[in-house]
C-alpha cells in the first residue's frame, strides 16, 4: 500500500465517476457519478494525510469538508429533483432544455 497505488485507486474512482456524471441521463444517476468523484477525492486526501503530511491534522479536516460537501450535494440534488419533477414530471437531464420562461 504505497501512495502511488492509493492515488491510482483514487484516479480510477474519479475517472469512473466522471464517466457517470457525463453520461447518465437520470438526475439521481448523475449525482451518483458526482459522489464517486468525491469518493476518490476523499481517498486521495486521506492518503496524502497518512503518507506525506507527517500527521498534520489538516488532511483529515479537508476530508471532513468533502464529506459535508457530499451531504450538501445530495440534499440539494434531491430537492432539485423533486422541484423539477413537480414542474415538468421529468427526472431526466434532457427535460431541462427549456429552463428559461
Amino acid at each position, binding site marked *: *500500500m504505497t*501512495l*502511488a*497505488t*492509493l*492515488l*491510482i*485507486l483514487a*484516479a*480510477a474512482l*474519479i*475517472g*469512473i465517476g*466522471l*464517466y*457517470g456524471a*457525463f*453520461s*447518465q441521463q*437520470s438526475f*439521481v*444517476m448523475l*449525482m*451518483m*457519478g458526482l*459522489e*464517486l468523484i468525491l*469518493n476518490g477525492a*476523499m*481517498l486521495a486526501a*486521506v492518503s496524502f*494525510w*497518512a*503518507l*506525506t*503530511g*507527517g*500527521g498534520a*491534522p489538516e488532511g*483529515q*479536516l479537508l*476530508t*471532513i*469538508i468533502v*464529506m*459535508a460537501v457530499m*451531504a*450538501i450535494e*445530495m*440534499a*440539494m440534488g*434531491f*430537492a*432539485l*429533483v*423533486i*422541484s423539477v419533477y*413537480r414542474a415538468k*414530471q421529468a*427526472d431526466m437531464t434532457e427535460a431541462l432544455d427549456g429552463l428559461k420562461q
Partner: protein
Amino acid sequence: MSAVDIVFFINAAIAIYAGWRVFVTDSMVRASFFLLVSFLAVGVIMLLLAAIYLGVALFFMMAVEMMVMALFMVMFMMNPAGLNPMKMVHQEKVAIGVGVVAFVALGAVALFGEFPSRPVPEGLEPVVSLGHELLGDSMLVFESAGVTLLATMIAVVMLTSHKGRYGDANEGSQPPGLEPGGDPADKPPEDEGGGHHHHHCH
C-alpha cells in the same frame, strides 16, 4: 506482501468493481447499493491508513445516504428491481473519453509525481489530534460547515415545499401517466358516470 497490503488490494478491487457496476447495472436500486459497497471499501482503506474517525464516519454516513438514495430510486425511477435491460446514457463516447483521460492524467501524477515521504508518526493518535484541530484552530471551519448544512436544510425544505413563491407549487402539474404519454394516473375519464363529482354549488 503483508496482511495490510492484501486487505488493501482486495478492497481496492471491490471499490473499483462496485463503482463501475453502478453505471452498468439494470436496476437503479442495485446501483445505489453498488455505490454503497464502493464507499464501504474506501472506508476500510481509510481505516488501514489510520484515519479511524473518517473511516467510521464514512460507514455511517454512506449507509444512511444510500438508503435515502435507494428510496428516491424507487420513488422516481423506472425498473427498480432490474427486471428489464436498461441503459439511459447520452454522449457516451465523450463520457468514456473524459473518464479515461482523467484516469490517465491523475494516474500519471500518481506514478511520476514526487511527494515527500512523511508518514503519520508512530505515537500519533489520529482521532485525538483531529479533535484538537477541530475544536481549536479549525473551530471556524467546523462551525461554518455546520451553518452551511443548516442553510442546506432550509433550502431543501423551501425547494420541496408544496407552497411556492406565487401560491401552490403544485398548481398546474399533473401526476404522470401509468404508461408513457398516457392520461394522468389519478384522474378518471371525463365521461365516466359522474358519480364522483361533488356538488357544492348551492
